[in-house]
């Protein structure tokens, strides 16, 4: 019995992982890593008794004997990802596949070579008890990208970041840091690809985004899991006044996906936008958790998450919006819409608003329903076959998210995924 209990501890996993951990932790992060290691002892894998993990089990993750892998060369980058990019395989930089160079306006490189230290600013929000995987990431951070854009600089081209997770029973913990200085702007597209037929992979990522005054950040995230993947993507945003952020998350496929996005609005006149689209099939499980925290007045947040659920898939959405006492004249809008294509698909959707200011405009809505049969029939009477009619309706539904794309060039692969999933 003793050992069984021991196995559910995150720290036990950390201990067993330490043997295979080969990444170098940058000096400025060593304290953080030590602190995270210390705080980890006593933390359990979350169970469905924990509100934050109510609909998403982690037991399957706790049962695998994970290890880090140094294997970085057998990775293939899908042909459609063209242009300059920075590539990581299993939490290591693959410089052969990378061809992205910094210039005078910005620095980009792997986490371990960077001395950009932003941890202190995020510490007040750190909550390892709710999300013990964050402690694991911080205790053993691997290489992700660090991007710093100089004040008033505008990076014209979208920066492509490719993460590949491959092998069997391989855990990866990329750590990313993005800092946009005053008045700068950048566009990013992140790929997360779990190799198919390679075995079980677990990505436990963490990104810290610091968006300065009057800076603009746009980021598209494409998640390609496999039949055996566990993908846990954590992102924390700190937004200074007059900044604008758009994050779009497209969960294209994957056995188990959980996204935690937390946005702290720390200044006035901020515009924060979180959007997501997911189309799980088979027994895929996709969970989007967001927190938008309005700390200051006169800012606006918009959330739009839409899902199409097929087969026996399960979707979860939980969006928490806090409007603090000081955050008068806040506008916060949240919407989660779902279409169940099969009788056996499930959606758990929970919007939560906590408002402590009195002069605010907030709305949230959650809908889960079927495709409009009447509309399908109408299109059919005009000569459109049922399958195509369904596709038209779903494309229209997805378009509400797609119209927020930061990089239009990824539209094709998202539409294609919708087509292939519906064609099955």
């Amino acid at each position: 019995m003793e050992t069984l209990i021991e196995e559910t501890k995150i720290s036990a996993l950390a201990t067993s992982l330490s043997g295979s951990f080969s990444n170098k932790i940058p000096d400025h992060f060593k304290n953080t890593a030590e602190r995270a290691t210390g705080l980890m002892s006593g933390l359990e894998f979350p169970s469905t008794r924990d509100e934050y993990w109510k609909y998403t089990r982690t037991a399957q993750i706790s049962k695998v004997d994970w290890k880090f892998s140094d294997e970085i060369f057998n990775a293939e980058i899908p042909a459609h990802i063209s242009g300059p990019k920075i590539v990581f395989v299993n939490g290591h930089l693959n410089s052969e596949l990378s061809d992205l160079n910094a210039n005078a306006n910005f620095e980009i490189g792997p986490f371990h070579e960077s001395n950009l230290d932003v941890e202190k600013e995020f510490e007040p929000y750190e909550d390892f008890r709710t999300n013990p995987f964050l402690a694991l990431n911080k205790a053993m951070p691997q290489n992700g990208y660090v991007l710093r854009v100089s004040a008033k600089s505008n990076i014209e081209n979208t920066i492509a970041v490719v993460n590949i997770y491959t092998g069997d029973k391989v855990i990866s913990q990329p750590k990313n840091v993005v800092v946009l200085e005053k008045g700068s702007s950048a566009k990013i597209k992140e790929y997360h690809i779990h190799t198919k037929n390679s075995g079980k992979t677990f990505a436990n990522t963490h990104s810290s985004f610091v968006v300065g005054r009057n800076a603009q950040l746009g980021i598209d995230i494409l998640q390609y899991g496999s039949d055996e993947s566990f993908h846990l993507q954590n992102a924390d945003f700190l937004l200074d006044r007059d900044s604008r952020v758009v994050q779009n998350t497209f969960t294209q496929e994957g056995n188990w996906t959980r996204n935690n996005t937390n946005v702290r609005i720390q200044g006035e006149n901020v515009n924060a936008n979180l959007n997501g689209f997911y189309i799980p099939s088979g027994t895929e499980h996709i969970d989007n958790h967001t927190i938008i925290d309005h700390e200051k007045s006169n800012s606006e947040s918009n959330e739009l998450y839409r899902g199409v659920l097929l087969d026996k898939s399960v979707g979860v959405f939980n969006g928490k919006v806090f409007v603090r006492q000081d955050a008068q004249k806040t506008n916060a809008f949240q919407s989660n819409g779902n279409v169940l294509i099969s009788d056996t698909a499930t959606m758990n959707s929970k919007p939560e608003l906590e408002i402590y200011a009195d002069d605010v405009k907030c709305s949230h809505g959650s809908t889960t329903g079927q495709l409009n049969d009447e509309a399908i029939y109408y299109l059919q009477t005009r000569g459109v076959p049922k399958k195509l009619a369904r596709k038209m309706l779903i494309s229209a539904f997805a378009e509400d998210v797609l119209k927020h794309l930061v990089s239009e060039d990824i539209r094709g692969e998202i539409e294609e995924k919708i087509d292939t999933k519906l064609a099955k």
Partner: protein
Amino acid sequence: MLEVKNLRAKIEGKEILKGLSMKVNPGEVHAIMGPNGSGKSTLASVLAGNEDFEVSEGTVSYKGENLLEMEPDVRSHKGVFLAFQYPVEIPGVSNINFLKAAINERREAHGQEPITAKEFLKRVKEKASLVELDNKLTNRSVNEGFSGGEKKRNEIFQMAMLDPTLCILDETDSGLDIDALKIVANGVNQLRSKDRSFIIVTHYQRLLDYIVPDFVHVLYDGKIVKTGGKELALELEEKGYDWIKEEQNPVEA
């Protein structure tokens, strides 16, 4: 063109059509009139292929084929068109894009090449002007935010675009003011030809002043109980439907 024999249909277990028969030859215009709830829209739906209605008895032959066995899109490819009493709003699906897809599906079914962009645009322009449909509307989402009259004109526009041989108009006149009614009627009249037949469902005689029918049928309680020429419509206008009801349900002496 169309031969309906002893058609019985129900919805949610309730029988609505109770042995309806009618025959439509090429080029003919048939008006179907009758009190509310008599089954006019049900007939239109069954002909268009609405799955909600279950046909329990009878046959419908269209150009010599069993219409009832075909999916609604196949019926459309073979020339059946239904202008809905209540056109459906479809947010996010562009009127013009879906029509292009519809035309190309039909062309594919007939072994033809897809329509060229130029040809398509020319047709849009031509057919939109037929019912004086604003260019902006042709580009918008299907029926979304259209007024009642615009929706009805959009139905006739789509009909003209798809070039059907059997046009079923379900209360296309309802909700139209007199000017819009004239526009719609004029559009329909221009589409009349010796190969194209019409079934015009209407509650009022008004539309038939402008679209002159060859036959007028009275549908009552799921059956056609009276058939005549265009003068029957005038008689109904004058006397209402009560005399039909009385004829059908004579008071026991």
